[in-house]
């Protein structure tokens, strides 16, 4: 049904925002991590979202596009260097590299993700209300 199309599009938005939340949670949890499997401190991650056609061959038909998280990128710029000679991960100068996670900007991203999620839920609720109103026409 065409009404379910709007629901599917909003659902893709909800999924994307939830994945964004996962990444933010990962960043904030690893705010002081100095060791990772690849070596070196944890590096801030962020999501890349892409618009993809909602149906097969949809790009040919000009169908609406849903959103999808296609990539999670790592940003290795701006690692915090602190002087802590007693730290086991310090180099020979006594400098420890800490992750480039900024709690303030992560909180802002968290709020943005939460608001975007709410907006998608509002669209869903409106779609449902419209469908119910349409069924009431016959009463």
């Amino acid at each position, binding site marked *: *049904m065409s*009404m*379910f199309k709007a*629901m599917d599009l909003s*659902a893709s938005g*909800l*999924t994307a925002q*939830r994945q964004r939340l996962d990444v933010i949670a990962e960043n904030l949890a690893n705010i002081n991590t100095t060791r990772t499997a690849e070596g070196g401190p944890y590096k801030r991650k962020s999501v890349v979202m892409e618009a993809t056609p909602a149906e097969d061959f949809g790009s040919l038909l000009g169908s609406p596009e849903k959103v999808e998280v296609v990539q999670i990128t790592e940003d290795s710029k701006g690692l915090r260097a602190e002087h802590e000679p007693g730290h086991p991960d310090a180099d020979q100068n006594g400098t420890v590299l800490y992750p480039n996670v900024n709690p303030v900007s992560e909180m802002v991203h968290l709020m943005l993700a939460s608001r975007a999620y709410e907006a998608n839920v509002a669209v*869903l609720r409106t779609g*449902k209300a419209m*469908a*119910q109103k349409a*069924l009431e026409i*016959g009463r």
Partner: protein
Amino acid sequence: MKIMAPSPELISPEGVRGLDKTPASRQGFDNLLGQMVDQVQQLQQDGDRKITGSLLGQEELHEAMLSLEKASLSLKLLVTVRNKMIEAYQELSRMQM
């Protein structure tokens, strides 16, 4: 859910007047209703599967809620269509010949 346009025989005056043509047109509406029931059934099974999946942590929570919403709305549509059909039948049965 795809809703087919009613077949031309159903709308054309001949279809209503010509009693010999009724089997074909009646089958059209039967098909339509049958398809709707099938689709509602499918949506409900989908909802069941998604709820189980989300309880097991394999599916997104909102996907489960959405599929339940879809099932509920499509069932409401089906019930509305059925009520209208019964209403039309009662209207016809009250008709004075």
